[in-house]
């Protein structure tokens, strides 16, 4: 089966799951630091669960299987039946990698390849609680609780009977899985749902202990019902527990329902053991597609409720809120397309179609049937049909203001195609150009009124430009997020102890830049870990702490972003670098001796230069730094390195905030205008051209005691230009890396912010040209790419 990548549902899934996967890798590493963090465990569990749900909906079975086992592992973890250790983390991280690989395959429109059975088996082993207890005991214990829930039991028995008649296929399937009672999964869904609603209601209203008391009963019941249930009920039950946990978490912090909540939580805790019975049964049993749809829908409902419950609680922890919003959005989408999807999901075929209506029908019937139920459950039952509507459907019980706020919360963010943003950006660019033009015209005309209007326009345009640019901004966290994992894996494989510190994760920069920076940064961090930080024993000998530290920081500095990667490792020895440079034939002994320390450090950016004598799979081929440097200069950025032997190395990168607009120095050569990126420009001065010297057939001028090679841009860039006989000229000193050269130009126009327009297909890649722009007077100026121009012409 090939995957239709145009499918909207799939696209939504890709976006959401992509974000979740990104978050997961960070969370997993974090988990290793704080293995007992229940919130974190829950978040990870939910992450896998959400991906599984989405993948299941899209029939990506390989993905489902892998996520499913991973999810089970975390289920065991959060129930504290197993402790987090590095072996477990290794397995789980491998699982995450596998999921990522599959995810990429899906993104490319391919059917994901099934996960390595060995990995699945390894995960499977981890789903068994430590000190493995026989499941029967737990079932028994939950049976006790069922007794406790006598009141609800008869009613529960009624419903299955109803549904058995209604949907034979589902019932058949369920009964084949469950032996003791004929309760199909869907039925349990409803019951659990009721319980959940009970829980929510009671939690929210912060009613007396009585309400909370009714709660345990309900939960025990569903716990009992789980005994022989198949997978759906297990998942749903988990959701329910999540729910209860969630409630428990939010409420006590702010409200006074301490007692009620405590009992709620106790209850969920006590109900948990019963949950571990189903996992085993479930992993063995095949998963029907119908289950999944039910599952999804159910999740959607729950999430919605969860969401509103949360806002009610008022102190949502940020991540949860984020996740829930995403999931809720997904749920909405799914629900909106539910009927359509039901038809299109071929495999799910009949059972799916059957089970779906079944899922809703009982819900609608409930209010009538449930007359006998405890009063607390009445309201939730009435609410359910509402909640199951596609829209957020704010239910409005007077005591519950939350749902009204929930939709507002959802509307605060909008997903926008980046292409659309690029278009807007482009148009704003045009506007900037028109503004520039008007500014010039008004200066020329000297009309005061026009001048006022233009300066107003000037301000507005600048604001608009900034706002639009902000929409494209993303926190650098997106890149930084992957580093904990990278460092952890590397440190483990290199047997080093390393602490990674992230500073300024919230610094915003252009989306394109965020993406473009990822690879160079990964490389630099790997370098720091591999070359920089010493082995623990070595560190101890040198009187450092055994654990090395790598700090990755970002901060905004004017219209630039400063990124730095510093380690407290061995540092670099300038002398050694020079020696190596001579050995590798990068330069001769004399010129090596003349290098300053800083220049020597910069040698590592030269192609083919590696200080490691052994090549590892991590680094040492001497290709990387060269590539890093090229990449950074492509972004109009700078890279600088500083090191002290024995103390550490700091690599700093300076990149502009955005790629779309570039500050330049406009110069003219003959009639034509050219723009030199301002990042490259060091200084400008007027020069008496007769006072130049010729060294090695190249013109050189001495500036502050240092020789500066001089080039006539006109000779390079203008055909048939005559450049002899001029007595004076303007020199623009540009720096490329550590090298400085002077360009002689005809005229300096001034500093101008330009919008970079890419050259057409036929011209792209022309040496020395970074693009073109349109000047204030509507003419075209070519933007020069100084490094590539030097390479081509010098």
């Amino acid at each position, binding site marked *: 089966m090939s995957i239709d990548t145009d499918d909207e549902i799939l696209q939504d899934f890709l976006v959401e799951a992509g974000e979740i996967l990104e978050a997961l890798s960070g969370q997993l590493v974090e988990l290793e630091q704080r293995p007992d963090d229940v919130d974190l465990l829950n978040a990870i569990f939910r992450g896998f669960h959400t991906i599984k749900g989405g993948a299941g909906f899209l029939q990506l079975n390989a993905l489902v299987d892998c996520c499913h086992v991973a999810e089970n592992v975390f289920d065991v973890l959060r129930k504290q039946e197993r402790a987090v250790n590095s072996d477990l983390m290794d397995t789980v991280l491998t699982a995450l990698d596998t999921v990522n690989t599959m995810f990429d395959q899906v993104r490319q429109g391919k059917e994901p390849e099934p996960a390595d059975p060995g990995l699945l088996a390894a995960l499977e082993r981890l789903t068994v609680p430590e000190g493995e207890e026989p499941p029967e005991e737990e079932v028994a214990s939950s049976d006790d609780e069922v007794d406790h829930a006598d009141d609800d039991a008869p009613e529960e028995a009624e419903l299955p009977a109803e549904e058995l008649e209604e949907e034979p296929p589902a019932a058949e399937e369920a009964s084949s899985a469950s032996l003791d009672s004929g309760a199909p999964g869907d039925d349990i869904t409803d019951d659990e749902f009721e319980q959940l609603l009970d829980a929510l209601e009671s939690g929210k209203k912060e009613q007396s202990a009585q309400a909370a008391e009714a709660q345990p009963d309900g939960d025990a019941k569903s716990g009992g019902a789980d005994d022989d249930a198949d997978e759906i009920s297990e998942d749903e039950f988990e959701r329910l527990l999540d729910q209860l946990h969630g409630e428990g978490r939010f409420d006590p912090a702010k409200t006074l329902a301490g007692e009620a909540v405590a009992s709620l939580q106790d209850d969920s805790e006590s109900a948990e053991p019963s949950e571990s019975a189903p996992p085993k049964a479930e992993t063995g049993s095949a998963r029907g597609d119908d289950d999944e749809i039910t599952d999804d829908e159910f999740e959607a409902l729950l999430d919605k409720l969860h969401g509103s419950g949360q806002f009610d609680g008022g102190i949502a922890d940020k991540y949860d809120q984020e996740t829930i919003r995403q999931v809720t959005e997904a749920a909405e989408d799914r629900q909106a397309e539910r009927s359509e999807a039901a038809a299109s999901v071929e495999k799910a075929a009949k059972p799916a179609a059957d089970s779906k209506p079944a899922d809703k029908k009982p819900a609608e019937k409930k209010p009538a049937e449930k007359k006998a139920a405890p009063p607390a459950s009445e309201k939730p039952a009435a609410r359910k049909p509402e909640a199951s509507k596609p829209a957020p459907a704010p239910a409005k019980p007077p005591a519950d203001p939350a749902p009204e706020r929930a939709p507002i919360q959802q509307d605060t963010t909008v997903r926008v195609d980046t292409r659309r943003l690029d278009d807007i950006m482009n148009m704003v*660019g*045009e506007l900037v*150009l028109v503004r520039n033009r008007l500014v010039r015209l008004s200066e020329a005309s000297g009309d005061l009124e026009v001048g006022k209007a233009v300066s107003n326009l000037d301000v507005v345009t600048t604001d608009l430009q900034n706002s639009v640019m902000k929409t494209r901004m993303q926190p650098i966290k997106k890149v930084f997020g992957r580093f904990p994992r990278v460092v952890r894996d590397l440190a483990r494989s290199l047997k080093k102890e390393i602490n990674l510190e992230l500073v300024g994760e919230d610094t915003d920069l252009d989306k394109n830049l965020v993406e473009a920076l990822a690879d160079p940064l990964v490389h630099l961090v790997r370098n720091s870990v591999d070359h920089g930080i010493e082995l623990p024993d070595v560190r101890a000998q040198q009187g450092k702490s055994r654990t090395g530290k790598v700090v990755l920081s970002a901060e905004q500095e004017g219209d630039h972003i400063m990124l730095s990667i510093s380690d407290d490792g061995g540092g670099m020895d300038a002398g050694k670098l020079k020696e190596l440079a001579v050995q590798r034939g990068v330069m001769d002994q004399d010129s090596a001796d003349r290098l300053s320390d800083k220049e020597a450090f910069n040698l590592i950016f030269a192609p083919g230069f590696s200080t490691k004598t052994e090549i590892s799979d991590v680094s040492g081929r001497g290709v990387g730094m060269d590539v890093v440097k090229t990449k950074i200069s492509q972004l109009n950025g700078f890279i600088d390195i500083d090191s002290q032997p024995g103390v550490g190395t700091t690599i700093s990168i300076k990149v502009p905030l955005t790629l779309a607009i570039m500050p330049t120095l406009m110069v003219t050569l003959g009639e*034509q205008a050219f723009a030199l990126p301002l990042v490259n420009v060091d200084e400008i001065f007027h020069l008496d051209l007769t006072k130049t010297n010729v060294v090695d057939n190249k013109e050189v001028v001495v500036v502050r005691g240092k020789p500066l090679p001089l080039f006539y841009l006109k000779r*390079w*860039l*203008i*055909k048939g230009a005559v450049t002899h006989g001029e007595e004076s000229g303007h020199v623009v000193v540009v720096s490329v890396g550590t090298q400085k050269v002077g360009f002689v130009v005809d005229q300096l126009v001034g500093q101008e912010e330009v919008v970079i*327009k*890419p*050259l*057409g*297909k*036929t*011209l792209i890649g*022309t*040496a*020395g*040209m970074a*693009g*073109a722009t*349109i000047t204030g007077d*509507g*003419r*075209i*100026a*070519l933007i020069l790419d100084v490094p590539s121009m030097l390479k*081509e012409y010098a």
Partner: protein
Amino acid sequence: MSIQASKASDDDPILQWVTFKLAEETYGINVMQVQEVLRYTEIAPVPGAPGYVLGIINLRGNVVTVIDTRDRFGLLPGEVTDNTRIVIIESDGQVIGIMVDSVAEVVYLRQSEIETAPSVGNDDTSRFIQGVCHKNDQLLILVDLDRLLSDDEWQEIAEL
């Protein structure tokens, strides 16, 4: 073929062609590929660009590459006159300007009136020729822009 019928006559569609002149010959390009026709404006040369690229122009805020059609067809460079036009065409997703001596008119041709090009002369240049049409004692050379602008062709030309 990217040619679209302007009138749907099933077996013999009528096609519209924009005709232009280059060194006394009349050429035609499919009207569907023509975006607009501009008077000659200042073309900014791009240093280091291939010889057939005259430079770039500012087309209402967009940078458009202009190629020298004379150079492309192996003709001698001509002079810029009042009649010189830049035809903005769209081919294979890219917008490009071609400089021609003058633009004449739009003609309607039936598919059946188009004959295959006589295989004389340079094989390579005749590749851009989609066909010819003899009408009103005039020979109209129909240009296949997609081929004219495709990278492979450029490559071959560059190697000649």
